[in-house]
């Protein structure tokens, strides 16, 4: 999908964690584009690495985890103007990973925002909701103004806790944001603590907090999981509305295919840290090419045919430990269509039915016809549907 309207082009992203049992390859060589104003979803089971992907984009990976490889090309001419030629391309795209840490971090709370699965544990239980949203507003303001925060500021905030860090204006804006996400009686609710909010309300509050950043890019990590089904619809509607109004790009991380079909423009299917299939949502859901995707869809109950058999995918998610990862396709042990070819080498990435927008990593799927893609970077089955910005060569 070539296009000057791409916001993010992720290439070969790999994130690893070092644990007592060994090195875990949580994200293994992911390549993905996210267009301006587009909602892209990453679908997969728990442990497939989708959350880690989202956090890696936000630079929220803490030790013992590290992003070990890849580039995250972000389109921002302002940013490109401030860095030297090695990190910027076309005067438009900047590789986030090559930026100095301070600059990279300054994107959080300004252009990039994130909402989490469990709002109850994502809010500080000892501060009011209004104050926390106001903090986000204030952080946004300060970063944009280039204000630093040093020991002196910290001391001042410790000594005067009530008027610290947040100003009247930030707090007012926080109340406005609460109203924007349809929380009734926002002024009073802003003075309440997180535990006094219901699950759905708190998720709205978290969205309000994310909006404080005026984001161009939002990572939504399982935003509806854990909420009542009746509430989920409201949240989805809110996200739709906000995305439209603000022309935000959203990376929607979820295992709920219903949410995907409603919200996502494009969908990527992730398994054991790797992408198996990417394409426009209707194509992926209605004409799945990868056996894993097919398996996922088959395991859903069919509303129109209650007596139809539900076919679960047998077996368990494989280990992500580096020394235990298979050479070939990581789904081979559970795949009904697996052959020896699958296990000997990583599966190739090919278009489905000649459609370059819909690609699949599988020996048995995809057609050889049509344009061949650029070689996948790295050893895993990656779906490279990006066009690397000109000026950077392929390894």
């Amino acid at each position, binding site marked *: 999908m070539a296009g000057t309207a791409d916001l993010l082009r992720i290439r070969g992203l790999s994130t690893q964690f070092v644990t007592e049992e060994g090195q875990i390859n949580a994200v293994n060589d992911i390549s993905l584009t996210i267009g301006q104003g587009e909602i892209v979803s990453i679908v997969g089971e728990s442990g497939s690495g989708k959350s880690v992907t989202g956090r890696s984009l936000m630079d929220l990976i803490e030790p013992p985890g590290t992003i070990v490889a890849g580039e995250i090309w972000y389109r921002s001419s302002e940013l490109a103007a401030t860095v030297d030629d090695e990190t910027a391309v076309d005067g438009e795209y900047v590789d986030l990973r090559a930026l100095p840490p301070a600059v990279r971090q300054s994107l*959080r*709370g300004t252009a990039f925002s994130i909402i989490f699965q*469990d709002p109850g*544990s994502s*809010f*500080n*239980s*000892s501060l009011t909701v209004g104050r926390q949203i106001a903090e986000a507003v204030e952080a946004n303001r300060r970063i944009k103004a280039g204000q630093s925060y040093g020991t002196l500021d910290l001391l001042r905030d410790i000594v005067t806790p009530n008027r610290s860090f947040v100003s009247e204006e930030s707090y007012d804006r926080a109340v406005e944001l609460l109203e924007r996400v349809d929380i009734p009686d926002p002024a009073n609710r802003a003075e309440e603590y997180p535990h006094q909010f219901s699950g759905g309300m708190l998720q709205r509050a978290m969205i309000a*907090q994310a909006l404080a950043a005026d984001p161009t890019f939002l990572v939504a990590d399982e935003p509806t999981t854990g909420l009542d089904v009746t509430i989920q619809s409201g949240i989805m509607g809110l996200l739709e509305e906000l995305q439209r109004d603000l022309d935000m790009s959203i990376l929607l991380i979820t295992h709920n295919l219903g949410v995907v079909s409603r919200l996502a423009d494009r969908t990527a299917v992730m398994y054991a840290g790797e992408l198996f299939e990417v394409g426009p949502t209707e194509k992926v859901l209605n004409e799945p090419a990868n056996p894993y995707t097919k398996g996922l869809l088959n395991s859903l109950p069919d509303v129109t045919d209650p007596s139809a058999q539900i076919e679960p995918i047998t077996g368990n998610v494989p280990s992500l430990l580096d020394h235990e990862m298979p050479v070939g396709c990581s789904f081979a042990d559970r795949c009904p269509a697996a052959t020896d070819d699958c296990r000997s080498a990583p599966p190739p990435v090919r278009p489905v039915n000649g459609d370059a927008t819909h690609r699949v990593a599988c020996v048995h799927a995809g057609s050889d016809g049509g344009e061949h893609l650029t070689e996948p970077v790295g050893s895993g089955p990656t779906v490279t549907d990006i066009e690397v910005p000109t000026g950077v060569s392929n390894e």
Partner: protein
Amino acid sequence: MSTLAEFIARRLAQGVLVVWGVVTTVFLLRFLSPTNPAVLIAPEDATAETIRRIEEDLGLNEPITVQYLDFMFRAVQGDLGFSYASNTAVTSRIIGSLPATLELAFASLVFAIAISIPLGIVSAKYRGSKIDYGSNLISLGGLSTPNFWLAIMMVLVLSVQFGLFPTSGRPFGPTENLSSWIAHMVLPTIALGTYFMALLFRMTRNGVIEESGKEYVTAARGKGLPEPLITYRYILQNSLAPVVTVAGLQLGVLIGGSVVVEAVFAWPGIGSMFIRALNSADWPILQGVLIVVGTGYVLINIIVDVINAQLNPQVALS
């Protein structure tokens, strides 16, 4: 859902109950001994005449309930009895010795907190580093060393060997001769405060490590808050609650420790007075000190609970 005022009121009511229990227990203690209470109360070298007089003064021939009510009544009014050994009212003697002990206790507390909390944060953030390792070692030592022995070792090295600090005593108060007061305060403060410092260090370090891994900290970073603010308002504030609670409970150890430290340094506080009273069998003083200390402890713990409520409103309001 109750407000802060209701919370305080509730805790105060409970506290009064406990204080009543404290006074009652102290009253009942003397009956543990097989000897005549008058003999207990009289100084060791009292004559039979004195003992009879004491019996009458205290109404020891009255039924126990009357004695008890009389005791309570007087205690509430601040009259903690009369010390026959020293021929002064107990209350005035306690008031006289209290400031010196409070100085020591306060200084030790400040010493302990000032070192333990910053060190705990640094150790948690740089887990496994040399600073962390060294701090843990010191903390282990501090928890395992009896305060009187630490005091004596410090005197051995710093006073006797190098003559840096005086060995004992408190010749002047802070208002009379500040430098002398400070010089005499250093060793006792370190001796008294070290155990507490070690304990608080451990708890702070553990608390910060635990809180740092929680999702709301990641969320705070995600919204662009500066790191120092996150460390303070998000991590520290939430890790402090259990620290404050344990600190309050452990204050008893601090007060008990001051008895020993005062004995080593001949510090003229309540602790020294208590020991002297023990050696001369001056029971009224012992009673008085126990009541004052017990009541003080209850009060301090109420304050601790209020601080906790401020730090973590969820607990108080539920």
